Every structure is written in structure tokens, then in C-alpha cells.
């Protein structure tokens, strides 16, 4: 994992002091709220419906045990005893007091954490595959590149007041677990015909009210040119992106308006003028950062441990968890364990301070002190010995963290919705809670397989509904909460945007309606098809009928 050096620590100390001074000037009235707004946003501080919300960056989703304990401390000391993991691998605290923010920031800084660029019209916290470094199909570890991008983008003097927010995601595997095609820039490490590793660069993806799948503007970018090329893209966007309308300001609108070819041409022209300048990455820099991500020294473990086999036969609950929450690791004898933050009936992504502390202890015992955060709002222990799986499962179960539903129907993504957010039209969390219970029951009955349900409380699409196999969008109809249903979206390597199925459904009908759609799929599916495959094969008509009957 990346560890701060003296420079990082000194930088962060200055940044914490600077923000403390800005908060003091706001509290004294020297700064107006309008002037303070971008300053607090660039430090992750929002003003929500009921209180301030503090968003802490978890760079590319990697947490040490110390960092997890620091988050638990902030939850306990400055918030209501829990935190919320978001779809961008960050953590949000929803009940923070402005006066206490500087001290919370200082506490987090001691654990090498901060809220820098988790909000505002700047380059946001960079996200990555949660299985980075351990996925069997990985070509190269994306975290090295995320860290390089983190450093380059931190307080970038030219790109801190962009037309709109800017999100970058990196994947190093053919199977995309980082949803790179719905980011402002998606980077995919791959091999060219000569066998060299470089980046496919995709630009202009995004969800929100105008969803687009990103377009490839460069098939292969040599690694040492990554930062100069990113700087060229950002410079083109900073100058040409629209600033007259907040809803048309993302780079996806510019890419759509000018066309991907024209954007590629403008970026290329800019890049040619600076590609061999100060941003060209020397191999020594890449190597120095790579050493932070060297794999742990894995002791040799039995790839077929008898205690695992025995537990699987003895305990069907363990067997079920093993099937849904445990994935193969690149090192024999080890496994990747996903920890669901979607127990049935609970708000997706929430984690109590007690759970965080306990997970920190478990990560030290079973995962080399490392935890990952996923964009599906779950956690991962990336390095678990297979022989430890039964005891880890028992420990997680005691913490109510062993829900066996990763990738299944009740593993729902949802935004905070009207319960917290001032932008929302409708509640997301209670719908996720009720739907999770209902679909969980259906799943046990029919073994639904991989099914992604995503819920957004408004058109800003923080719950990624456009790329849910089933997406729900909260809309306001004469002051009442309704939900528009989209089907057929995906954020994976087969990325697509869902299509609206029909008229929106009222709050008290939405759970029944979605359940009916899923039952319809059960009747139509052929040989192990996922919901998405069935929908793509048969089309919308049978689902439309069910929508009309149910609503």
C-alpha cells in the first residue's frame, strides 16, 4: 500500500492548517457562504439537508487497518457513530459540525487521510478496480497509476476551477470492475500488438441527467506519456467546456457536441506541444511508486485446505457465502473476500464505528492489514488464506457482515436520497431496504444469479441507475415520490445505458413492481441466463406488460 513520505505529510499538514484558517474566516464572517463554498467543497465539505456532510477520500479504494480505525474514530467522535461508503470509494459522514471539521481533518491527517478534491469542480479522487494487485486476470496493477494521477492532480494550479467535476477511473484487467466507461476519463491498461503495456484512453462517459458511455480517443498511450496526455485533455476541457449551464458543463457534453474525433484531434495537437516536457514520467519515478504496491510476502498455503472442504459440506450457510462472496486470487491458496455492506433491510453502504474497528482487527489477522472499498459500496479483504475462510466467515457473521449477496439481487446500490440529500426528489434508502428483503427472498427461492439493482433519488444519478440491470430513478410528481424504471444497463465491459420501461411507479407500488419484473425474468430465462441477458434477448415487451399490470 502507498505510505506517505515526509513530503506528503508536510503537504497535508499545510493543507489542514489552510482549511482551518478558511473555516475560521467563514465563522468570523470574513468569507461569505458563496466565497467559502468552493473552498469547503475542495476539502470534501458539503452543506446537506440537515447538516454538513464530510466526504473523506479513500484513494483508489485502499485502506490500511490504521486508516479504518481513524474513520471509526471520526464516526464516533464527530458523527453519529457510523459512516457511509459511497459509489466512488469514499466515505461520507452525514452529521458533522462545521466548528469541528478542522479537528476531524487533523485527526484523519495523522492516518494519511483527507477530504481533498472529493467535491468541487476539480479532478476528483481517482478510483480503481477493487481487486487491483490480486485479480487473476490482471495485466498490470492500476494502483500505481492511480497514485501517480493522485499526486499530479492534487491542488493542480491550472485545473482546480474546471467547468464541472472531473472523475478518472483506472482498470488493469480485461474484466472492468471500475466502471471506467462511465467516467470523464476511463483508462484501461492493455497490451498492444508489440506486447507493450499502455493505456486505452476513453473520454466523456458519465451518468447524471445526460448519460453517455465514454468514447475511445486513443487506443494505445505509452505509460510514460500518461500525465502529459491527461494534462492535454484537461487543458482542452478547461478552455472549451461550457460554463454557462451547470447541466451542460461536463466533458461528456463537449465530446458529444464536437464529436470524439474532433476532441481527439484537439487533444493530440495540444499534447504534441508538451509530450516531451516536464510531465514525461521517468522510469525511476514509476519504479519508486511501484515499490509501494509490491505484493505482500505470502506464506505458502494449502490450495485445497481440508478444513475448508469440511466446513463447506457441514454448513450450507458457509457454502452459500463462499459461492457469492469469495473469488479466486492470483496466488494459489489465497482468496479475495467481499464483505457485503447490504444486510437485508439496512441502508446500503453504512458501517458502524464498532464494525470498522472490528474489521480493522480482522484485516490485520486475515488480510495483511488491507481492506478495499468497492464502487458497489461493499468492502473487500484482498489477501485471505483459503484455510482461514471458515473462521473469518464466523467472525464476520458475528458482526452481521457475512450477508451472502455480492453481485446478487439484494446487493443494491443506492444514493443517500431524500433522507439526507437536498437535491433528491425521492427516498432511495427505504426503497433499497424493502427491495433488498423482497429480492433476497426471491433469490433464495429461484437462485437469480448476478442481478444489479441501482437506485438514484434524483436525475443526478449518484446511485448509477442508468447502468443497473434494473435502475430506479426517483422523480417528483405533484409532490409525491415516484420511480421511473430503466432496464438493461451495465457498467461492466459490456457497458450500456438502460432504457426507460414505461410510466413511473408510485412509492408504495415500486417494490411489488420490481418483484414482478424479476418473476417475469424467472419465467423467461434460458440456461443460466442473467436478468440482463434475458432482457437483451427478449426485449422490453414482456416486462412492459408486467409494469402496466403492477403499477
Amino acid at each position, binding site marked *: 500500500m502507498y505510505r506517505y*513520505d*515526509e*513530503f506528503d505529510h*508536510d*503537504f497535508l499538514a*499545510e*493543507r489542514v*492548517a*489552510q482549511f482551518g*484558517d*478558511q473555516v475560521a474566516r467563514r465563522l468570523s464572517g*470574513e468569507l461569505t457562504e458563496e*466565497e467559502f463554498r*468552493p*473552498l469547503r467543497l475542495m476539502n470534501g465539505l458539503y452543506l446537506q439537508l440537515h447538516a454538513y456532510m464530510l466526504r473523506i477520500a479513500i484513494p483508489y479504494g485502499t485502506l490500511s487497518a490504521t486508516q479504518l480505525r481513524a474513520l471509526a474514530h471520526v464516526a464516533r467522535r464527530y458523527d453519529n457513530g457510523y459512516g457511509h461508503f459511497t459509489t466512488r470509494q469514499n466515505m461520507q459522514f452525514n452529521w458533522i459540525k462545521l466548528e469541528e471539521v478542522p479537528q476531524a481533518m487533523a485527526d484523519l491527517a495523522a492516518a494519511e487521510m483527507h477530504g481533498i478534491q472529493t467535491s468541487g*469542480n476539480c479532478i476528483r479522487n481517482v478510483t480503481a478496480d477493487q481487486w487491483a494487485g490480486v485479480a487473476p486476470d490482471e495485466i498490470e496493477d492500476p494502483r500505481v497509476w492511480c497514485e*501517480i494521477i493522485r*499526486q*499530479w*492532480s*492534487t*491542488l*493542480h*494550479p*491550472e*485545473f*482546480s*476551477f*474546471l467547468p464541472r467535476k472531473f472523475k478518472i477511473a483506472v482498470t488493469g484487467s480485461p474484466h472492468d470492475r471500475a466502471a471506467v466507461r462511465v467516467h470523464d476519463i476511463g483508462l484501461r491498461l492493455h497490451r498492444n500488438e508489440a506486447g507493450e503495456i499502455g493505456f486505452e484512453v476513453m473520454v466523456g462517459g458519465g451518468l447524471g441527467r445526460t448519460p453517455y458511455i465514454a468514447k475511445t480517443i486513443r487506443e494505445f498511450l505509452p505509460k510514460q506519456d500518461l*500525465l502529459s496526455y491527461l494534462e492535454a485533455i484537461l*487543458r482542452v476541457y*478547461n*478552455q472549451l467546456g461550457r*460554463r454557462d449551464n451547470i447541466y451542460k458543463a461536463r466533458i461528456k457534453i463537449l465530446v458529444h457536441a464536437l464529436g470524439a474525433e474532433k476532441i481527439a484531434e484537439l487533444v493530440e495537437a495540444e499534447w504534441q*506541444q*508538451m509530450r516531451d*516536457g*516536464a*510531465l514525461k*514520467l*521517468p522510469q*525511476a*519515478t514509476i519504479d*519508486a*511508486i511501484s515499490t509501494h504496491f509490491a505484493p505482500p510476502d505470502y506464506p505458502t498455503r494449502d490450495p485445497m485446505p481440508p478444513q475448508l472442504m469440511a466446513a463447506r459440506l457441514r454448513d450450507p450457510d458457509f457454502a452459500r457465502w463462499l459461492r457469492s462472496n469469495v473469488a479466486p486470487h492470483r496466488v494459489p491458496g489465497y482468496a479475495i473476500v467481499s464483505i457485503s455492506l447490504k444486510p437485508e433491510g439496512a441502508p446500503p453502504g453504512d458501517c458502524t464505528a464498532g464494525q470498522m474497528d472490528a474489521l480493522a482487527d480482522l484485516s490485520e489477522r486475515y488480510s495483511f492489514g488491507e481492506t478495499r472499498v468497492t464502487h458497489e459500496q461493499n468492502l473487500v479483504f484482498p489477501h485471505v488464506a483459503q484455510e482461514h475462510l471458515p473462521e473469518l466467515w464466523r467472525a464476520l457473521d458475528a458482526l452481521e457482515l457475512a450477508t451472502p449477496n455480492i453481485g446478487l439481487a439484494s446487493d443494491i446500490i443506492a444514493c443517500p436520497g431524500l433522507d439526507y440529500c437536498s437535491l433528491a426528489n425521492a427516498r432511495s434508502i427505504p426503497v433499497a431496504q424493502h427491495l433488498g428483503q423482497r429480492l433476497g427472498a426471491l433469490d433464495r427461492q429461484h437462485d437469480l444469479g448476478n442481478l444489479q439493482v441501482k437506485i438514484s433519488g434524483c436525475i443526478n444519478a449518484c446511485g448509477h441507475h442508468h447502468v443497473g440491470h434494473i435502475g430506479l430513478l426517483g422523480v417528483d410528481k405533484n409532490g409525491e415520490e415516484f420511480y421511473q424504471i430503466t432496464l438493461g444497463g451495465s457498467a461492466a465491459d459490456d457497458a450500456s445505458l438502460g432504457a426507460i420501461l414505461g410510466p413511473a411507479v408510485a412509492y408504495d407500488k415500486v417494490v411489488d413492481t420490481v418483484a414482478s419484473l424479476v418473476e417475469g425474468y424467472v419465467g423467461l430465462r434460458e440456461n443460466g441466463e442473467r436478468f440482463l441477458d434475458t432482457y437483451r434477448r427478449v426485449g422490453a415487451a414482456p416486462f412492459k406488460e408486467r409494469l402496466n399490470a403492477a403499477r
Partner: protein
Amino acid sequence: MPLVKDGALVADAWTRIADDAALPGDGAVTVSFKRWEAERSSLLGRNAPVGVFLGNTDPVEALASDLNRIGVVMLDFPKYTDGRAYSQARLLRERLGYRGELRATGNVLRDQLLFMRRSGFDTYEVDERGAAGFAASMAAVTHAYQPATNDAGMLLRRYTSARASGAK
């Protein structure tokens, strides 16, 4: 508007001339890009310093061949959240090699000064709060990760020569 240069309040040597006003016979003047384009040769032939005020959509490249004859380039922040002038500043300094005064005008607040300096600005039209807090704001963050106009940044240096030689 107080004007800060080299960390101190200074008197403004430049007079901004509106597009429809007559040019004075002598004295340092600045004009809009539009007027610069229309009256370039008479402005250069005036035998007094001339500067240009660029809007955010005016192309900096159009000044390329005259930069050694221009005394000040003023770039605009119509709102302090509008960051186009940062790109214009870097292009003027790094691409076009401009060495003269580069001034931040408009909604210039003290919490943006560090970004401006690193993008190549060297004079700032600030408000009273910016003038009073100028030194503190400029000293708030002394560590920079990325290369920019006035320094190479640490991303490259600290992993290569600086580290090898033991320097911080």
C-alpha cells in the same frame, strides 16, 4: 482595487483605455484584445508602453509575435470559479515564453492566489481582504506535487535526483 506586486502594494502604472475612448498622447496604456487587433501598429508606434487585456475566449497565440513589445498582459477572472485564465497564463509563460508582467484581474480572491502564482501570474488586483491576507495566503501551502510554470513540482524530482542526492 489594490494592486500587489512582489508581495507589496504598488501604484498601478497602467491606464486602461475603453474601446471607444481616444488614446492619450503618452503614458502606459492597456487596451482590449479587440482594439489591439484593430490598432496594433498605431499602438506599437506610440512610443509609450502598451499592454493588452485578454478575455477568456481571446486566443493567447495571437499575441505570440508581439510578446516582447507588450508590457503587461491582463487576464480576467469574471468569477473566481471560472478557471480559464489559468490555462491562458500557463500557455503565455510556458508555450509562448512571455516574460513581462502577467496580471490577474476581476474577481481575484486570496484563496486562489497560490494557484495563480503557480500558473505564472506575478501581479494581482485584489480586494482589501486579499491585500491584508496576501502574504499569509501565499505562504499557506509551500509543497506542490506537479510541475507548473514557476517550478518543476515534486512528483518527478523527489523520486529521482532530489531523493538520490538526499535533498528534501
